[in-house]
C-alpha cells in the first residue's frame, strides 16, 4: 500500500514536470507579450529594459532552463502583471475565497444529491422520482453562467434578498454556491439513484432484512455503502474542479478567487502566473486522485493495490 502511494507520488511528480513544460511552451507560443498593452506609452528603450529585467529577452530554452531551476527550488517566480508580487503569494491570496466557495458547493451538492438520489431510489415512479429526473436533465443541460444570470436576476436584482456580487457576508455565498452546485447535484442525484437501485436489488439486502434489520439500517448501511463507490469516483474529480474554481462563476459574481486570476493571467500573457497556476492545478488533481484511490480501499475491501 505504502509502496503504491509512493509510486503514485513519483508518477505525479513526473506528470507535473511534463505539465509545467507544456504550459510553459504553449503560453510562450501565443503571440504577444506581457508588456504589450503598456508598450504604446513606453519608449522602445524602456520596453527593452523591462523585458531584460524579467529575462523575457533571453532565448526560450534559456528562459525554460531558468524557470525550471527556480521551480525545483520551490520558486514560482514573480508575477509579470502585478509586479513585485510573487506567484505563490498571488495564489495564496485567491485560494481562500475559492476554497471557501468550493467547500460550501461540495457539501451542498453532496448532501442534496445523495438525499435526492436515495429518496428517489426508494420510491421509483413517485412524484419525487420524477422531480429528480427533471432536475437531473435541467442541471446537466444548463451551463452555470446561465444559472448564475437567472439567480442574480431573480434573487439579487428583483427580490433583493442577497447582494449581487462580492463575498463579504455569508449572504453572498448563496448564489455562487447554488450556481456551482446545480450541475454536480444533477449528476450526483442520477448516479446515486441508479447505484442505489442496483444495490437495493442485491441478494445481501434480502439477507439483511431476513436478519431483522430495520429499513433505515438496510438502506443507509447495507445498500448505501455498496452504492457509494461510483459516487466517490465522481466526487473526486468534482473536488478538484471546484478547487480550481470556476472562472465563469467567479467572474460573474466578482469573487477574487483563483479562477478569475487564471482568466486574467491568460489575457495578460502573465507567463509566470499562468504556469504557476497550471502547476498548482496539476498538484491538486493528482493529490485528490491519490486520496480518492485510498478512499476506495476504505469503502471496498476487495480493492487492492500492489
Amino acid at each position, binding site marked *: 500500500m505504502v509502496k503504491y502511494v509512493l509510486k503514485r507520488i513519483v508518477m505525479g511528480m513526473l506528470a507535473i514536470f511534463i505539465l509545467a513544460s507544456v504550459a510553459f511552451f504553449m503560453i510562450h507560443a501565443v503571440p504577444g507579450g506581457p508588456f504589450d498593452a503598456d508598450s504604446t506609452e513606453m519608449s522602445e528603450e524602456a520596453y527593452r529594459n523591462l523585458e531584460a529585467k524579467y529575462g523575457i529577452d533571453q532565448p526560450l530554452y534559456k528562459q525554460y532552463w531558468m524557470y525550471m531551476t527556480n521551480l525545483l527550488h520551490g520558486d514560482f517566480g514573480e508575477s509579470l502583471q502585478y509586479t513585485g508580487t510573487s506567484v505563490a503569494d498571488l495564489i495564496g491570496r485567491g485560494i481562500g475565497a475559492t476554497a471557501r466557495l468550493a467547500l460550501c458547493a461540495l457539501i451542498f451538492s453532496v448532501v442534496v444529491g445523495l438525499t435526492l438520489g436515495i429518496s428517489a431510489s426508494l420510491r421509483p415512479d413517485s412524484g419525487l422520482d420524477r422531480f429528480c429526473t427533471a432536475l437531473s436533465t435541467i442541471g446537466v443541460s444548463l451551463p452555470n453562467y446561465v444559472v448564475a444570470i437567472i439567480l442574480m436576476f431573480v434573487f439579487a436584482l428583483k427580490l433583493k434578498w442577497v447582494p449581487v456580487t462580492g463575498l463579504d457576508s455569508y449572504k453572498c455565498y448563496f448564489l455562487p454556491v447554488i450556481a456551482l452546485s446545480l450541475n454536480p447535484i444533477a449528476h450526483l442525484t442520477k448516479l446515486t439513484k441508479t447505484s442505489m437501485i442496483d444495490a437495493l436489488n442485491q441478494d*445481501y439486502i434480502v439477507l439483511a432484512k431476513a436478519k431483522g*434489520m430495520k429499513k433505515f439500517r438496510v438502506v443507509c448501511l447495507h445498500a448505501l455503502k455498496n452504492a457509494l463507490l461510483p459516487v466517490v469516483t465522481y466526487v473526486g474529480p468534482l473536488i478538484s474542479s471546484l478547487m480550481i474554481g470556476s472562472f465563469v462563476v467567479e467572474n460573474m459574481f466578482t469573487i477574487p478567487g483563483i479562477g478569475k486570476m487564471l482568466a486574467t493571467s491568460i489575457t495578460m500573457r502573465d507567463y509566470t502566473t499562468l504556469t504557476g497556476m497550471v502547476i498548482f492545478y496539476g498538484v491538486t488533481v493528482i493529490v485528490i486522485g491519490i486520496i480518492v484511490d485510498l478512499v476506495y480501499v476504505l469503502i471496498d475491501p476487495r480493492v487492492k493495490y500492489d
Partner: protein
Amino acid sequence: MHILEVEHLRSFFTTDNGVVKPVRDVSFKLESGEILGIVGESGSGKSVTMFSVMGLLAKNGYVGQGRVVFEGKELLHIQPGEDWVDLRALKEQKEEYEKKLEDIRGKDIGMIFQDPMTYLNPILTIGFQMSEGLKRYFHLSNEECRKRNIEMLEMVGITNAEKRLSQYPFELSGGMRQRVMIAMALNARPKLLIADEPTTALDVTIQAQILELMQELKEKIGMSIILITHDLGVVASMCTHVIIMYGGQIMEEGSDMDIFYHSRHPYTEGLLNSVTTYDEKTKAKRRLEPIEGSPPDLRKPPIGCAFVDRCKYAMKLCKEHEPPVMQLSDTHSCKCWLCNPEVTALKEGK
C-alpha cells in the same frame, strides 16, 4: 403445537408481461420440532411461498390473500379480494406486514439462502454481519458478540474462527460462506429455521456436512426447520413431513413414509422416477425417467389441474376441473382426481 400455520396463501408479481401467480392457494401447518421438506422443480413456487411468509418479496411482489399464524399469533390476514385487486391497499398491507416481521425475522425465524456467494454483504466483515442481529435483539457488547460469534463459527465447523471474524466474504470459500450464513441465522437461536436450498450451490461432500450440521443443531437448539429443495435424496434423509409443490400449488402432502412408499400423485411418482436408485437384488442400472414437458406458464395457469399437460394419466376431467384436495389419511393428502373414489369407480366401471 403448531409453530407456523399458513392458510390459503396466494402471491403474485406484477410484471411488464402481465401478472404472474407463483403461489396459488397454499396451506400447511408446521409442527413444532419437525423438519418439513418442500419439494418441487424450479418455478414451482416453493421459494416464493416462504418469501411471502417472511415478507421478503421483491418490490413488485404481493400477497393477495392468506393468513399467516406464527406461534399462535396472527401476523397476516388478507381476505380474498374481488375480481379486481386494489394494489395500493395491498402495498399498504405489505408494508405493515414487513414492519410487524421486523421484530420476528432474525430472532424467532432464521433464514438461510441458496447462494452463499451473493447473499453476504461483500464489503462488511463476517464479524460485523454476524453481530448485527445480536446487537439488535440482545444488546450485547462488542466483546460478548465476539465470543458468541466465535462459539457459533466453531459450532458450524469453521476453523480459525477468530481470524474469520475480521475477514470479508470474498476471502472465504463457498462452503465456508454457507457455514457463515448458517451460523448467522442460528446466532439468535431461532425457533424456526427456513433453509432455501441451502446445499444447491455446494459440492456433495460439503452438502452432506451442512445437512448433518443442520440436523445436529436442530437437536441442540430444538428448533423447527423448513427445508426447501428439489433434491429428494436430501428430503428422504432429513424430513419427517413432506410437501410436493407444482405450479404454485401443493400436489401432495404427507409424512416421509407416505410420500416415498405410498405416493399417490402422478407428479410425485414422476419425481421419484427421475431420481437415481440402485436395485440391490438385480444389480441392474435403471434408466432415469424424465417428466416430459415443462411447468405451466403462471401468467395463465391452467383452469384444471396444474399438472395436466405433463400427466400420463390425464383425463378430460383434469383439464376442465381443478381437483380437490383429498384427505387419504391423518397425515396424507393428495390433490388429484385419481384419488377420488367416485372417479376411480367410474374408470374401473368402463
